[in-house]
């Protein structure tokens, strides 16, 4: 599924979209910890948490099937480990792996599809991640698709040049052509970075980035955070007590 889709989803206008990114990040962490630290009654816990996430997806007005499918990208990798676990005589662990990995991915997806990535990165400052690193990530995201497109063009060109050479010699030639393409892409990307820096200087860049807007934590965000956090914790406690 194309990343552009995720970008579109993140610019929606539901109640979840409007929440402060920090509240959503905190809620996600609570979710992941509640799920990740659980060892018993995973069937119950998993089912209830799934319903909670489903409710979140509906509230955010996201296409349910597409969202569930997208979270499924973790399944192939996880399924391999699950199968190994089952063959090694520990099927419960295998099922636990699949369930936890899938639900975790779904939760992260819910966060990312209700928060535009640059805003999410601003929110992550609260986790103590260095601002420098977050800005680098922001720029990475901005130019991810630009450079990927360039790479696609080059890869087609490189393949076309070596299409006729067969066998091992062909492999060697294609290998070198690919390395050449990467080197050119590297140099071009480096050049682009210098262009960007010049463009920044030309508009008065003082050496550091100034944010245009400040994040504001409203009362609704507080309520959201308390509600989701407490709900998740209670769900776990109740399930483990009841069983």
């Amino acid at each position: 599924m194309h990343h552009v889709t995720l970008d579109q989803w993140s610019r929606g206008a539901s109640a979840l979209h409007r929440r402060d990114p920090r509240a959503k990040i905190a809620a996600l962490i609570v979710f992941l910890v509640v799920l990740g630290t659980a060892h018993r009654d995973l069937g119950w816990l998993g089912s209830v948490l799934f319903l909670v996430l489903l409710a979140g997806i509906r509230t955010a007005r996201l296409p349910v099937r597409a969202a569930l499918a997208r979270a499924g990208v973790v399944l192939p990798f996880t399924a391999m480990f699950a199968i190994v676990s089952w063959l090694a005589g520990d099927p419960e662990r295998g099922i636990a792996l699949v369930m936890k990995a899938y639900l975790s991915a779904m939760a992260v997806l819910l966060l990312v599809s209700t928060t535009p990535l640059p805003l999410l990165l601003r929110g992550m400052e609260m986790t103590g991640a260095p601002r420098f690193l977050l800005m680098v990530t922001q720029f990475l995201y901005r130019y991810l698709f630009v450079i990927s497109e360039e790479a696609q063009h080059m890869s087609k060109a490189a393949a076309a040049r070596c299409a006729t050479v067969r066998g091992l010699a062909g492999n060697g030639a294609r290998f070198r052509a690919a390395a050449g393409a990467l080197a050119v892409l590297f140099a071009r990307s480096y050049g682009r970075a210098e262009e960007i820096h010049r463009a920044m200087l030309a508009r008065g860049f003082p050496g550091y980035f100034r944010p245009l807007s400040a994040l504001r934590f409203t009362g609704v965000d507080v309520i959201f955070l308390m509600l989701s956090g407490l709900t998740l914790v209670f769900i776990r406690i109740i399930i483990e007590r009841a069983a």
Partner: protein
Amino acid sequence: MHIPDGFLSTPVWAAMDVAAAPAVGYVARKAQQGFDDAKVPLLGVMGAFVFAAQMINFPVGVGTSGHLVGGALLACTLGPAAASVVMCAILAIQALVFQDGGILALGPNVFNMAIAGVLAGYLPYHLWGRGSGRRAAIFAGGALSLMTSAILALAELLISGVRMPGPVLGVSLALFAVSALVEGAITVAVVIALERIQPSLMRAPGAGRSPAFAALALVAVLLAAGGVVFASTEPDGIERLAMQTGIASHARTLISTPLKDYQAAWLGSGWAAQAGAGLAGLGLVYGACLMIGRKR
């Protein structure tokens, strides 16, 4: 290998998150080099480059192809601290946008690939990048960066109790070894091509730093990675491996004897001791980071 959420046990991911945090803060400060945000566009764009580079296929056999992972290449061109920051950014985007790797698992993934992997990728170049062994050093860097991150990831999974019986572990290691060689080959091929078009992009290796410390750091990284893997394999797994596949008895004694004494003490004290031991091994790697950094 990007570890998803739900695989690692709490002590492991928590310990790794704690281990990764100061390392990330450190490389971020070093990469800034006191220029505040001036380096942001360069690191961001080169991160985008690595992503894009993964789309270019390198044929490595009949019908199979590999692609660049990039830690070692970044380290030889941007320097190890900047390379670490770029890898962190890449891992963050992979986890958030592509659901490749978990969020709580970001600590372990960052440590394995952005810190230890980049360091292992850089050290050979730092030590032997001048002179005739240059290309071999770059190849070794590529291979080691991948191997180190893979071994650390496997170790974390094993400590967490994820089932990986002997044959599976063996096959995984073999596959990683092949990928490591491919990474080495791609890295050196790209560097050769790069030197032809713009040689100034390569960083001068080991400028003015004591090779002794760097060599020590390299040994520490290898020991830590290898040591952690041996320390973490489950006793059951090894026994089963020996019995199921009929591994020659000399191999069995080689592997299980040191482990038997080792684990009796460790497993007895539960996960806390294991996590602590894991951290200690990784502290070696972290210490290597600091040693390299202080020399500048």
